């Protein structure tokens, strides 16, 4: 087993340096065209960032040291305390998991050894997709393919709210490699209250809004599928949308050379949203019988595709895996971390959150170890706190993009913060078990 991203320890911060082609950590698109200037220990996004990236990279470096039971401790003491909590746990939980590939590898290793359970903080949203993958599958595309090829985008979530450069980079892209004069694209917003302000510019043709409640997108798509099969529908509307408008949308779909339906799993935050994803994916399959169409799932913030991918290739299953028996056991309901915490089925929680301070541990009186960003604040002091570096800022790393195909390198921006790497901390805790 390699910790292939070990990298050299952070160099001491020198006066000023500009880094190009920097990968942004702060949403699942992982734009890698950022230019970042470091002055001393401060970072500034000098080109190509969005507000989310800017606030992530530019957060001030506050001094933090490990704490055990609220008291300042050395790293070794904190590691020993963490190991003691895990060693005496009957079922330790490993949650959060906002980390890079090596961080997840280290979590998998210690969870395997300590017979724990692994889950990511955002896996509820991701599970809406995974349920569909595991029951019927799908036909998907990726960001570059959509950017060049799509002539119709159906936007079935508030994409702009989650990924503020998606329209700039994909939908409104100036050029396409398949035409010297790039044709205009049709953009259909299917839902309610979505921010459509970014769907502007020379590439954008018709912008169509079909207003319906989020919870009823699935019903609308199901109606489209029915119409596509040539069956007529009773009544005059579906989910408040006139049938004529649906017929028009179907006509646009059928005329598209390459249509893309995109959604953001965390944006479909209502019960049984997997059924909406399922309808979208089946509609895409229906259309592909005679033409080309594809799904494009976004989301994937805070390393959730990374956690699911590494967990899958190492254990066979995409998170919510328990090693309690010594072998991996998968149960996406039983091993959901929020439920395990609420029911106190786990008796020790290691919470890993190395991207942003806001993603702290859930409120619980279960003994909690936090490997967190240096500026993390707590309502309730965890039993052990170990500040760790952010991959892509304080050390090198790798991360998987929302389309689950592309992964990107993360740079060391050399703040010289002296923060430990997650992988080293976890390896030391594991060695002490």
């Amino acid at each position: 087993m390699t910790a292939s991203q070990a990298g050299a320890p952070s160099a001491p911060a020198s006066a000023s340096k500009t880094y190009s082609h920097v990968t942004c950590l702060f949403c699942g698109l992982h734009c890698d065209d950022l230019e970042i200037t470091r002055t001393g220990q401060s970072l500034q996004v000098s080109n190509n960032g969005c507000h989310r990236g800017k606030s992530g990279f530019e957060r001030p470096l506050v001094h933090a040291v490990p704490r055990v039971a609220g008291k300042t401790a050395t790293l070794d003491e904190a590691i020993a305390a963490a190991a003691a909590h895990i060693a005496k746990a009957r079922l330790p939980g490993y949650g959060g998991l906002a980390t890079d590939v090596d961080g997840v590898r280290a979590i998998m290793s210690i969870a395997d050894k300590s017979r724990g359970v692994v889950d990511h903080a955002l896996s509820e949203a991701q599970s809406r997709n995974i349920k569909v993958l595991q029951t019927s599958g799908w036909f998907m595309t990726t960001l570059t393919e959509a950017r060049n090829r799509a002539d119709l985008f159906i936007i079935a979530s508030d994409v702009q709210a989650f990924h503020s450069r998606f329209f700039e980079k994909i939908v409104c892209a100036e050029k396409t490699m398949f035409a010297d004069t790039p044709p205009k694209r049709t953009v259909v917003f299917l839902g309610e209250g979505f921010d459509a302000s970014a769907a502007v510019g020379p590439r954008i043709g018709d912008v169509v809004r079909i207003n319906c409640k989020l919870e009823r997108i699935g019903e609308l798509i199901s109606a489209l599928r029915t119409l596509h099969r040539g069956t007529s529908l009773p009544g005059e509307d579906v989910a408040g949308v006139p049938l004529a408008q649906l017929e028009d949308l179907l006509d646009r779909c059928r005329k598209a050379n390459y249509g893309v339906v995109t959604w953001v799993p965390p944006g479909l935050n209502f019960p049984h949203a997997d059924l909406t994803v399922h309808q979208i994916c089946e509609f895409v399959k229906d259309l592909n019988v005679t033409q080309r169409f594809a799904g494009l799932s976004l989301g994937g913030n805070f390393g959730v595709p990374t956690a699911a991918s590494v967990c899958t290739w190492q254990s066979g299953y995409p998170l919510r895996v328990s090693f309690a028996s010594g072998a991996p056991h998968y149960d996406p309901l039983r091993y959901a971390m929020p439920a395990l915490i609420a029911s106190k089925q786990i008796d020790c929680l290691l919470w890993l959150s190395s991207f942003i301070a806001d993603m702290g541990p859930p409120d619980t009186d279960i003994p909690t170890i936090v490997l967190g960003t240096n500026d993390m604040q707590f309502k309730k002091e965890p039993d052990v706190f170990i500040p760790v570096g952010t991959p892509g800022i304080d050390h090198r790393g790798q991360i998987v993009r929302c389309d689950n195909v592309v992964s990107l390198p993360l740079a060391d921006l050399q703040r010289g913060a002296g923060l430990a790497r997650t992988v080293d901390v976890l390896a030391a805790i594991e060695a002490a078990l």
Partner: protein
Amino acid sequence: MLIKFTGGKVYDPANGIDGQVRDIFVRDGRIVTPGAGEAASQEFNLAGKVVMAGGIDPHSHIGGGKVTIARMMMPEDHQGHEVARGDLTRSGCGHAIPSTLTAGYRYAEMGYTAAFEPAMLPANARQAHMEMADTPMIDKGAFVMLGSDDYFLRLLTKGAHKDDIKDYIAWTMHAAQAVAVKVVNPGGISAFKFNQRMLDLDEKHPFYGVTPRDIILTLGRSLQELGVPHPIHIHGCNLGVPGNKDTTLATIRASEGTPIHLTHIQFHSYGTEGDMQFSSGAAEIAELLNKSPNVSIDIGQILFGQTCTASGDSMRQYGNTKSAHPKKWVVMDIECDAGCGVVPMKYRDKSFVNALQWAIGLEMFLLVNDPWRIFLTTDHPNGAPFTTYPHLIRLLMDKTFRNEMLRRIHPGAQAATILGTITREYSLYEIAVMTRAGPAKSLGLKDRGHLGAGACADITVYDDNPDREAMFTTPAFVFKNGEMIVRNGKIVKVVTGDTHVVRPEYDRKRVEKPLKEYFDSYHTVQMENFRLSDEEITEPGCGHAPGTCGCLVIHPTGART
């Protein structure tokens, strides 16, 4: 420290040794010729045992996005096949699409010391290497996919200078950290994105106007001129389509003497005769292969049971979704670079088509004369999981067993195959060629796949059990770099394995100027980040000599012409 392996029957085809009793000496992980009177500090008495180099699987989907999609889609593949953590080994799971860790352990326990991922998309190379890094015990390497990527097709369409094409191929091999180049459904993956459902050898791509023949020949000749040891690795047009034997025959003829490797040829050897309009083309193809010394093949044997197919061939895999079992599948268009299709499949011996596929693969094995040009594969997991290799070896080595199995399959398929009339039985020497020496030679791994002085001491020792399936399932010992890693089929030491790459010469400055423009105009990843650096795939500061611990092994190329 000098280690002596005494008295084993050695099968080392690269050095012409066919079962003679020989002593083998190992020092510092390499096979050596000891000085006169030099005493060994450790000795293994292998009297009566069979000794071969470690097995090398030249085509096995062990890492990369599509394999992980398959793992994620198929929890039912893993359930009931969980593997608990051991004293030395991590937990995992595994049947058709095992977890990376389990795959590494299983390969080693079966006497294999290397496996090559044959379909690494450039856009997914980083993840493929992550997964290979998490596959312990064995050496790894990957073939990078070209031929349906828009950059290559644009070069071809505009009639780019052949040096520009060669530079791009070399750049891609460097960027993706590859050991060879594969083409999958040449141009077809791209054509499918334009809603083309089939692309035969001389059919024009609907947008670029080039044909699969142009693509294959350009890649084949360029690789030869770049001095890359392994010839273009071809997954041809029309995979799985009845009648595709004609395309395969035409592809062999189209090579015009340029070295080519036709992979999983079983899936490309179908005729259209008989009531079911599905018949064997193996005899016809084997006859042409026997006369075509520039062509090598691997089989992609199917064996009965549940598996999950995973391929870069989105066009043909979409066609195969009709046969998905269970009824779920993933097809993807990927990054103006490639595609993939993941389709679960259950091969049944009572299905006419599946049974005949089984027979076609075996016919091909037995009708191709030269074992140096045919490699033993199931196209893991597409024909069957790699763990079925010992069973497959027995089918090849034991005519009585083979005919017994033949009698169990669909009667129509029995009637449609000449398998029962073939009396050939593979020898241990031929098995050693097909599973070690041949693949190593073809991939340019000069110090692997043989037991001569200077070779890496990857050695497998078997009991000479007449039940060849039992023999190849449980080796007595496996040594990796001279260290014992397996005893009686159980892991006794966990090692990492190396990553093999080939780096043909190219003009980086010249190729990166237009590439940078291309990436900036059309891509969502920066060219600089598309490239996978050495630091990303090696263990930094490991302190070991190259080639001893998950490090990169860079194999030499021939001179560029």
